[in-house]
C-alpha cells in the first residue's frame, strides 16, 4: 500500500533509558504498517530551519484511537531534541509507512534477531509477527552500555532466548554482540537471521553468517533527507538479480536488504563496476544475466 502524509496528534513522549519513545495517532499508517517499515517526521514546526525529515523505524503499532504508531530515538541533535519536547496533542507531520518490510519465511523456522542500540526497535514488531506464524525466535541485543540496550525485557518475554552484550559489561556479557554469534547460532539451530544495527555491526554479522551459509535480512539505516526516494542521499551499492551493481536507495529499495546482495565493503563509495560509474561504458549488446554472487560480499 502507498504511504500517506498525515498530521497526527502526539499521544505520549516517554523516556526509555537513554532514548525517547514517541507515540502518535496515525490510523492510516498503523493499519498498513509491516515490520521493518519506517516513518519520516518533519521537525521544528512549519517555519523550521531544519529542512530534512527525520526517519525512524516503527517500533510498535496499537489499535487505540483508531491506530497509533510508536518510534524510538536518541535526542542527540536539534531535530530529535525538538521531538523529545513534544507534548500530548501537539500535531506531528508524519509520512509512512515507508520502505520494503522484512520478508517473512513461509515455513515456521528458527529465526535469530540481532539488534544494536536503538536499531533494535524495528525487530520487536517483527518478532510478534514471526511468533504468530509459529516460528522459533532468539534475540541478541547489544549496545555500548546497559541504558542503551533497547527492549531487553520484551526480548526475554517474546523469545526462546535473549543474549545481551554491552561494550562496558554493564548488562550481559562484556564485548561486542557479534562475539557471541557463533555460539547462539549453534545452540539455537538458527535457519535465518534478521539484523538491524549500524553498518560495522551488520558487516560483521553478515561475514559470520556467511560461514554458516545462513541467509541474513539486514535493515540498513543510511542518512536520508526525504525518505520518499527523491533526494538520492541514502544510497549504497547493491547487486541486482542480473548481476549488475546499482547505486540503490536505502529508503525505497530497502531499508531491508538481502544481505548477500549488498556490497558491504563498498558502502559509501561508487564501485568501479557499478552501473554508470566513472569510466563505465554501456555494453554494446545486452550481457547474458549472471547469477548473484551469493554471500561472497559478506567479508
Amino acid at each position, binding site marked *: 500500500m502507498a504511504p500517506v502524509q498525515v498530521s497526527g496528534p502526539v499521544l505520549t513522549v516517554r523516556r526509555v533509558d537513554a532514548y525517547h519513545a514517541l507515540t502518535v495517532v496515525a490510523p492510516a499508517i498503523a493499519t498498513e504498517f509491516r515490520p521493518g517499515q519506517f516513518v519520516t517526521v518533519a521537525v521544528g514546526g512549519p517555519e523550521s*530551519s531544519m*529542512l530534512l525529515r527525520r526517519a525512524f523505524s516503527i517500533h510498535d503499532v496499537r489499535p487505540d484511537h483508531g491506530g497509533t504508531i510508536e518510534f524510538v530515538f536518541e535526542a542527540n541533535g536539534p531535530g530529535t531534541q525538538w521531538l523529545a519536547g513534544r507534548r500530548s496533542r501537539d500535531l506531528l507531520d508524519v509520512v509512512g509507512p515507508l520502505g520494503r518490510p522484512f520478508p517473512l519465511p513461509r515455513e515456521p523456522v528458527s529465526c535469530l534477531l540481532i539488534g544494536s542500540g536503538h536499531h533494535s526497535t524495528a525487530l520487536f514488531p517483527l518478532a510478534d509477527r514471526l511468533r504468530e506464524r509459529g516460528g522459533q525466535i532468539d534475540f541478541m541485543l547489544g549496545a555500548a552500555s546497559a541504558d542503551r540496550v533497547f527492549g531487553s525485557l520484551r526480548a526475554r518475554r517474546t523469545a526462546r532466548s535473549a543474549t545481551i552484550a554491552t561494550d562496558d559489561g554493564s548488562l550481559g556479557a562484556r564485548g561486542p554482540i557479534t562475539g557471541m554469534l557463533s555460539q547462539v547460532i549453534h545452540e539455537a539451530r538458527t535457519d535465518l537471521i534478521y539484523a538491524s544495527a549500524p553498518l560495522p555491526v551488520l558487516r560483521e554479522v553478515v561475514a559470520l553468517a556467511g560461514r554458516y551459509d545462513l541467509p541474513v535480512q539486514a535493515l540498513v539505516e543510511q542518512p536520508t533527507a526525504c525518505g520518499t526516494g527523491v533526494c538520492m542521499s541514502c544510497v549504497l551499492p547493491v547487486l541486482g538479480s542480473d548481476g549488475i551493481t546499482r547505486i540503490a536507495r536505502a529508503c525505497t529499495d530497502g531499508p531491508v536488504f538481502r544481505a548477500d546482495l549488498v556490497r558491504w565493503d563498498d558502502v*559509501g563509495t561508487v564501485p568501479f563496476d557499478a552501473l554508470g560509474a566513472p569510466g563505465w561504458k554501456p555494453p554494446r549488446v545486452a550481457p547474458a544475466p549472471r547469477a548473484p554472487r551469493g554471500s561472497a560480499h559478506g567479508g
Partner: protein
Amino acid sequence: MAADLRARLGHVELPSPILTAAGCAGTGRELAQYIDVAKIGAVVTKSIMLDPRAGRPSPRTAETAGGLLSSVGLQGPGIDAFLQRDLAWLLSRGARAVVSIAGSSPGEYAELAVRLSDAAGVTAIELNLSCPNVEGRGRDFASEPDAAAQVVESVRAAARYDIPVIAKLAPDVADIVTVARACTAAGADALSMINTVPGMVIDTTTMRPALAGGAGGLSGPAIRPIAVRSIWRTRQALPEVPIIGIGGVRTGRDALELILAGATLVGVGTVIFHDPSACARIQRELEDELTARNIDRVTDVTGLAHQPTAPALRRPIP
C-alpha cells in the same frame, strides 16, 4: 472568485505556474503517492544524460540553517531507460514533462535534444548548464556566456522547432545578466534560475567535510534572496524573456515573491524533501494569496515589483 492560476510554457497551457525543480522530484512516481502530478504546472525531470550515471559517493547531503548542501552528481538512468520508463510513465499520468538534460559538450546536449524531439509529448527541454565543459577548461557552461550560448545554439538547431528550450543558469557568476543575454541571443525561449549556490559544510565531530565530495550546492529557503535578485536583474534587462524562478520556495507567498520579481513560472526543489505534497500545497496557497489581494490572474503580477509604485490594493492584505 478564486484567482486564475493558468500559465503558459511555449504553446502549452499549464494549469498553474508551479513546477517541480530539476532533480528534486525523482521520476515523478515517488511524488504521485502524495500529489496528482497532472494537476501541477509540470514535472521537471532530473537532468538526463546520454548514459546511465552512478553519481557521487556518499554522504551526499548535509542540513544547513534553512538549507541543504548536496552533491548527488546527476545519478540517473541515461536517455534510453528514461524515454522507455520514466517519460512514458509521466505522460501516461497526464503530467506535462519538462525534460532537463546535461552533457559535457554542446554535441552531447544536441544529441539528447534529438532523442527528445523524436519522442512524443515533451513539453520543453531545460538545459542544466551547471556541468563542466570538457572541451573548454573544465569550467561549467553556465559560468561562461560563450560556452552557455554554444550549448543553447546546438540544442536549438537540433530540437524540434516547437519544443521550447530553457537555459538554466547558475548564480555564482560575475554577472548573470550577461549569461542570460548570451543564452537568449543564441535562441533560448526561456531562462530558469537559479541552480544551487556553491557551499561547504565541515562536520565538527569527524573534523572533515560533511560531504564525500567536499563541496556541494546549497539550496532551500536560505538561498531565496539570491534567486530573487537574479530574477529581478534579468527581468529588468530582458523584460520579454519568460523566467522560471527557482530557489528556496516553501510557501505560496514565496512563489508570489519570485513572480513579483519577474518569474512567469516557479520551480519547487528542496522543500519537496521536507514536504512531499509541497507543490500542490504551494499552488493552493498561491491561489489564496492572489485571491486575498483581489488579483484575478497570476499572469497580471509577473514582474509587478518593478513598477515604481505598487498599484493600490482594493482589499487589505490579510
